């Protein structure tokens, strides 16, 4: 990516996560996605160390993909198509070839792989926008690509086959920017496959999903998975609309404005509504040429693709487009490299623009493109589309776990597609912009790789704990992370926003052994057969629970649900010292509203490295009456090192009534 590593504070000169981890050297990131474009400069292997001897993977040949397509950066590539192939998929209307090989036909996998572990590429940009040196989060890590997603989606049989092979191949991190809706764990192939991966010491990082801001939309919710929501950067691409009345409406665009004479010309505005053709959304073929020819067309966001609307406008003879957010998108701008001069405006701006159009006989406007602007806006903020908690199937585990950059991420792109990925787009670029929790996920995969390189003996739970307890609760200005117009709730941000420089040296970790996940499933009331399906372990829950009375999963965040008249919960946590010997930590609690929180002991004195100490937390509801309506509150619990303020180990607390 051309900027997010800087936004996250990663530097190749100052002492931080990159230096401490050797840029992720020696670690292997497996990416389950749409494949890879191996010729992308992000996968060049100059300066890369040799392929690790433990690597058992392969570079599978196929259509337009040779065994020689792999190198010391891209050390493995395979494709899994049997589940897809047999699923009576109708012939694709897509004009782009779908390669029957690890070669990426749609760009998504190239983008995510390079975000996780792409090497440095100077002078990267999207048509001149967002220019900079592109780097993945772990530029020294090796990448292994497992193509499981095809034009119509990703079948769980293919995903499971890829996880099956990746475990044997020897990956250290698995990155899955895919998912759907939350599922019970025994019905969730990703949860089942990843349990075995975690048992093998592999960190599994998954996208939280894009079904936000709907409550309980978060997917990939197994506690052994790191579930990643999406946030914004402080980088903007202003493309401001100057209306005929002289007023301005803020918008953003990646269109290289000044390159075309028509780009900033004042044009007549038109918003085509009525009928059933979806013209307000600018569906292909819905815009009457006589109404839009030579004009600036307003299109509502939603239903069809943002860039596709631009093609629809262009096909109908329109000269420019204003993409207007609807209420669900609020002010979030996910920019695209449109095929015609275009800008995207927020919901409030859309209301203003439409009011101007409704009250003016000949509305006119022009777009003023402002290039790339960094650092002037508040960030990170929660992306509106980022899936939200509470966790639908396990109220004791807060999901998503953390946020990472996922809006307007510029990363590598294949040469078979234009920057909009539409077949009509004949431009060719090495980088393009994408938004989604898909883009957030590989940021954390790369960061997990950095931690793995710095601490090769750490378990996936320890790596995840380091990422979660070091996450930032505030934005870059020290103010609350925002979610639209309000401070974000823990159900949107989990433990906060990733901070790799702190995650590499967390001081303390909450570790979890695979057997503890099994006991946790017992506490949730899963049956013996359901637990066997998920974990392949034959357990007697009554015995497990008898031996582990009052068990709490040693999760780095705290989530309590007061149900059935219960007013008090006692939970335990166990911290392991991975910082310095003779470290003393004291606790600070910010209790959720309506709740009293007691912690014992309030000081933890670690004499040795790897020493573990436990503490108890009593969460007591002070609410007198319980209404039928579900209500929430949140707080936090932080262990601070008395002599090293860098080591702050923070856990969010969520309470549900």
């Amino acid at each position, binding site marked *: 990516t051309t900027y997010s590593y800087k936004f996250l504070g990663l530097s190749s000169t100052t002492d931080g996560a990159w230096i401490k981890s050797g840029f992720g050297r020696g670690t292997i990131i497996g990416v389950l996605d749409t494949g890879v474009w191996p010729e992308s400069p992000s996968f060049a292997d100059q300066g890369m160390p040799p392929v690790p001897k433990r690597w058992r993977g392969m570079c599978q040949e196929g259509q337009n993909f040779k065994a020689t397509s792999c190198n010391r950066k891209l050390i493995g590539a395979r494709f899994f198509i049997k589940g897809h192939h047999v699923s009576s998929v109708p012939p694709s209307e897509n004009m782009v070839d779908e390669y029957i090989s690890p070669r990426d036909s749609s760009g998504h996998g190239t983008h995510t792989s390079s975000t996780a572990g792409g090497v440095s590429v100077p002078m990267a940009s999207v048509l001149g926008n967002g220019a900079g040196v592109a780097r993945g989060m772990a530029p020294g890590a090796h990448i292994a690509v497992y193509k499981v997603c095809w034009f119509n*989606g990703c079948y769980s049989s293919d995903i499971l086959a890829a996880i099956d092979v990746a475990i044997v191949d020897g990956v250290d991190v698995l990155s899955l920017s895919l998912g759907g809706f939350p599922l019970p764990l025994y019905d969730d192939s990703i949860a089942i496959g990843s349990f075995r991966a975690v048992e093998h010491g592999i960190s599994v990082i998954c996208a939280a999903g894009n079904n936000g801001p709907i409550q309980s939309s978060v997917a990939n919710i197994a506690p052994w998975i790191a579930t990643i929501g999406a946030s914004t950067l402080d980088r903007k691409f202003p493309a401001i609309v100057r209306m005929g009345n002289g007023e301005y409406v803020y918008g953003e665009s990646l269109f290289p404005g000044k390159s075309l004479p028509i780009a900033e010309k004042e044009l007549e505005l038109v918003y085509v509504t009525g009928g059933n053709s979806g013209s307000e959304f600018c569906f292909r073929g819905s815009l009457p040429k006589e109404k839009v020819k030579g004009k600036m067309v307003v299109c509502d966001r939603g239903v069809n693709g943002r860039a596709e609307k631009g093609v629809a406008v262009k096909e109908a003879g329109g000269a420019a487009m204003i993409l207007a957010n609807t209420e669900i998108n609020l002010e979030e701008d996910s920019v695209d490299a449109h095929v015609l001069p275009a800008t995207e405006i927020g919901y409030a701006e859309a209301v203003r623009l439409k009011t101007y159009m409704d009250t003016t006989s000949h509305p006119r406007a022009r777009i003023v493109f402002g290039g790339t602007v960094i650092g002037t806006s508040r960030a990170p903020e929660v992306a509106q589309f980022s899936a939200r908690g509470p966790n639908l199937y396990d109220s004791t585990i807060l999901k998503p776990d953390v946020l990472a950059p996922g809006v307007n991420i510029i990363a590598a792109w294949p040469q078979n597609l234009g920057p909009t990925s539409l077949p009509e787009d004949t431009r060719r670029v090495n980088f393009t912009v994408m938004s989604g929790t898909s883009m957030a996920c590989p940021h954390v995969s790369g960061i997990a790789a950095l931690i793995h390189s710095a601490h090769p003996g750490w378990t996936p739970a320890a790596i995840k704990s380091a990422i979660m307890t070091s996450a930032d609760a505030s934005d870059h200005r020290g103010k609350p992370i925002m979610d639209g117009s309000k401070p974000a709730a823990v159900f949107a941000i989990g433990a906060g926003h990733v901070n790799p420089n702190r995650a590499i040296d967390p001081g303390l970790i909450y570790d979890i052994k695979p057997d503890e996940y099994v006991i946790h499933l017992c506490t949730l009331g899963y049956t013996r057969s359901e637990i066997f399906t998920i974990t392949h372990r034959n357990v007697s829950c009554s015995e497990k629970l008898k031996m582990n009375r009052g068990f709490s999963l040693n999760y780095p965040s705290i989530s309590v649900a007061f149900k059935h008249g219960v007013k008090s919960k006692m939970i335990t946590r166990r911290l392991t010292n991975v910082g310095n010997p003779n470290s003393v930590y004291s606790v600070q609690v910010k209790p959720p509203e309506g709740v009293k929180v007691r912690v014992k002991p309030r000081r933890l004195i670690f004499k040795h490295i790897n020493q573990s100490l436990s503490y108890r937390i009593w969460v007591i509801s002070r609410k007198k009456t319980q209404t039928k309506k579900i209500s929430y509150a949140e707080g936090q619990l932080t262990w601070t090192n008395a002599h090293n303020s860098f080591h702050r180990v923070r856990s969010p607390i969520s309470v549900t009534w």
Partner: protein
Amino acid sequence: YGNTLRTYIVQLHPHGVTSSSFPTKFLWHLSFLDQTLSSEEDSSSRLLYSYGSAMDGFAALLTETEIELLRGLPDVVAVRPDQLLQLQ
């Protein structure tokens, strides 16, 4: 729908009672299909994946009738229809 072929993921007991009599998991998985399909069917054409690391089991093309037969076998832990997920 009884005769329509769909992809199912069949999860087996990792140390199933019948597993030890086969030299490889793949052959064990094929034998499961053999028990389920009619004798003239080639079970290898129905077996899509044989899993051994992420899960013990296999993905295969099966009818609902065959699934019912499979569910009755002692080493079968779970049977799930293939699910379509999306990039995010």
